[in-house]
């Protein structure tokens, strides 16, 4: 069971890194501004997922704290960017 778990973890790590690269590509070549902002939000979500997988691989729970920080930063930046894109001002 340990070998299966290790294989599945490294497979999921590879898949998530490839998906993050695909999201960064859509930030570069998106259709419009909201499409690119969706790509940026997806990139932050995949960074969170990669941190969670690294926390399982290395068996250290400090990486879940890093994932919590990434989640908070992605939330605040997405809200601020969408407010800025809609109203052309943040506050």
């Amino acid at each position: 069971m340990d070998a299966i778990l290790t294989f599945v973890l490294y497979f999921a790590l590879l898949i998530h890194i490839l998906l993050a690269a695909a999201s960064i590509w859509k930030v570069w070549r998106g259709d419009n501004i909201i499409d690119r902002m969706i790509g940026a939000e997806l990139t932050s979500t995949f960074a969170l997922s990669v941190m969670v997988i690294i926390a399982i691989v290395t068996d250290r729970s400090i990486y879940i704290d890093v994932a919590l920080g990434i989640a908070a930063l992605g939330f605040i930046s997405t809200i601020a960017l969408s407010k800025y894109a809609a109203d052309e001002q943040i506050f």
Partner: protein
Amino acid sequence: METIFQFIAVLAILAGTFFSAVGVIGYYRFPDVYSRMNTTGKVGLFGSVLLLIAAALLTPLGWGKATALILFLMLMNPVTTHALASAAYRLGIPMHKPIRDDLAQAADIPPENGD
């Protein structure tokens, strides 16, 4: 008991990776912004939360932090998706083959709110 936890964790990791891959495939394949937001919302909830369930089962000290992060993600993801959709509607980004538009005649969305 350890083997049961590892079995559930393997299933959760595989399901989370599947939902993330399907979300990004839909992000590339769907025609407009509003239907792309349908699939990318699934990445934030199902993909991340299933991976965090596996992390809560497998890391011995991290289950509290993983549960807090699950609750935070379940509060956070609908808010960001609604903010992005509202910004897209206010910017006038067109829909692909719209059937009807309830926001156009129902409530007047002011271009800038008054606060």
